[in-house]
């Protein structure tokens, strides 16, 4: 593979961006929706650019990144070990499955009142409700990764005299790693979603969610779509980091 091929390879994501913009442009062009309601990609990109350069969008962007990262890390640090532990015993997992599936299926926005009451109206509430939501998804994926682990590997560790903890750490963790990364990517997107929704519906003075709701209320459509675009691109970026890390770690996938 020469340099040109390689740069085409690595330009893959660009096709996605272009595809999205192209469809958008088309929808806008043939006026499927009133242009007042669905602005053109150009106008949106312009708003995105000016928002980023005048610092207002950038400020909200950074605020959202900060909350999302903190919540996600908190979620991952708790959910990965817990998921391995719970997944290591099917009966154990079954007995807590109700709670996991229960809260996975409850909208974060329905849980806001509870978290507000318990943890106040500050960032703490937002971080905790986000970590809770994302953590459950990570936990669920990790636990299933462990439950679907290849038996022979577990038996090999067992017969070498690995105790429960060592098996968890040295085998189940690694065996479930491809699935864990899928869970992390589910979790990172969900974390972003919950943070934005929290910024939208729990009062907030900054963040993409706040910007989104404000733009919507003020009926600044390009600004609203710019905020959505920023959120989506941020989501892609976070996922991409995760893929990069996964590539370095999980070299044995499918082998």
């Amino acid at each position, binding site marked *: 593979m020469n340099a040109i091929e390689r740069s085409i390879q690595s330009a893959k994501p660009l096709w996605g961006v272009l595809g999205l913009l192209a469809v958008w442009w088309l929808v806008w062009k043939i006026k499927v929706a009133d242009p007042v309601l669905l602005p053109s990609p150009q106008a949106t990109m312009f708003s995105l650019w000016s928002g980023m350069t005048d610092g207002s969008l950038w400020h909200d962007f950074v605020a959202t990144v900060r909350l999302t990262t903190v919540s996600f890390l908190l979620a991952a640090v708790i959910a990965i070990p817990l998921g391995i532990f719970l997944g290591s015993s099917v009966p154990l997992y079954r007995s807590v499955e109700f709670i996991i599936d229960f809260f996975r299926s409850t909208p974060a926005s329905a849980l806001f009142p509870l978290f507000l009451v318990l943890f106040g109206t500050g960032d703490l509430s937002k971080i905790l409700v986000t970590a809770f939501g994302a953590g459950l998804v990570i936990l669920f994926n990790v636990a299933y990764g462990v439950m679907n682990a290849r038996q022979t590997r577990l038996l090999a560790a067992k017969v070498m005299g690995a105790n429960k903890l060592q098996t968890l750490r040295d085998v189940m963790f690694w065996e479930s790693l491809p699935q864990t990364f899928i869970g992390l990517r589910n979790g990172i997107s969900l974390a972003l979603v919950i943070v934005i929704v929290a910024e939208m519906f729990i009062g907030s003075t900054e963040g993409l969610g706040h910007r989104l709701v404000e733009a919507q209320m003020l009926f600044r459509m390009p600004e609203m779509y710019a905020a959505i675009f920023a959120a989506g691109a941020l989501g892609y970026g976070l996922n991409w980091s995760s893929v990069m890390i996964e590539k370095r770690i999980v*070299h044995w996938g499918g082998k």
Partner: protein
Amino acid sequence: MALKLAKPEPPMAPPPEDSRGRNPELEERLRWFPPNTHITIRGLDKAFGDTTIYEGFDLNIPRGKITSVFGPNGCGKSTLINMISGLIPYDGGEILFDGKSLSETHISYVFQNYREALFPWMRAIDNIHYPLKLMGVPAAERKRRVDALIESFDVPIDFNAYPYQLSGGQMQTICIMRALVVDPEVLFLDEPFSALDYEMTLLMRDRLQKIFQERGTTMMMVSHNLEDAVWLADHILLLTRKPTRIADMVAFEADRPRTATTVSDPEFVRVQKHCLEIFLKEASVR
């Protein structure tokens, strides 16, 4: 169903004698463990769904000997050593270790499924290190032992490769080395040479014998190659088709170290022929 621990405690102090000069504890012990028995299997039952594999199966595995297991495909050889080593549950009966319980005994196991038994996230060398790590051997000592093992084997394998970068035979070699590095008390080998080339098989056979002679490890090896099975063994356990019974337990007592010429030894030829006859008689379905 979990594995039972060893039932009769090993007599640490001389056992008490009763009034009539008899020693009931020793008698009980001898009932379970005839002299030199390491593992005793009594009345073992195992079925998969409707298929009975073992029913009331009894076996003594001698201590400090090599027992080869020879039997037709699907008769339950892997199942048997899996049950003994506590990897799969059994439906009834007892498997007892003399002296220590299974969990106290240091066992090693070379899996028939050598591909999946290695950890693909570790390099070959780290796979070999791993059981020592589990035992808490310090890094320096670990390195010394692994290096010594690698040197004594002297095989042309890139130990820094990941398992999935190795050929089948190389993977199997790593599996064997991983099992040997810990210096186990009991070693189970399930068709350990199946992917090895001619020369490597001879080498491995020889290494196993050397370790056996140095350390007196109890070994139990499944093999479909009668030459390998007899060459290494003190006893050859011949199994029938399922429901599995013992067709014969043949002794082969040639002196050690056995060499390349052992295979032309008349006793070797006799034992091999005898085993083959029994195998063909008992294993055949036609």
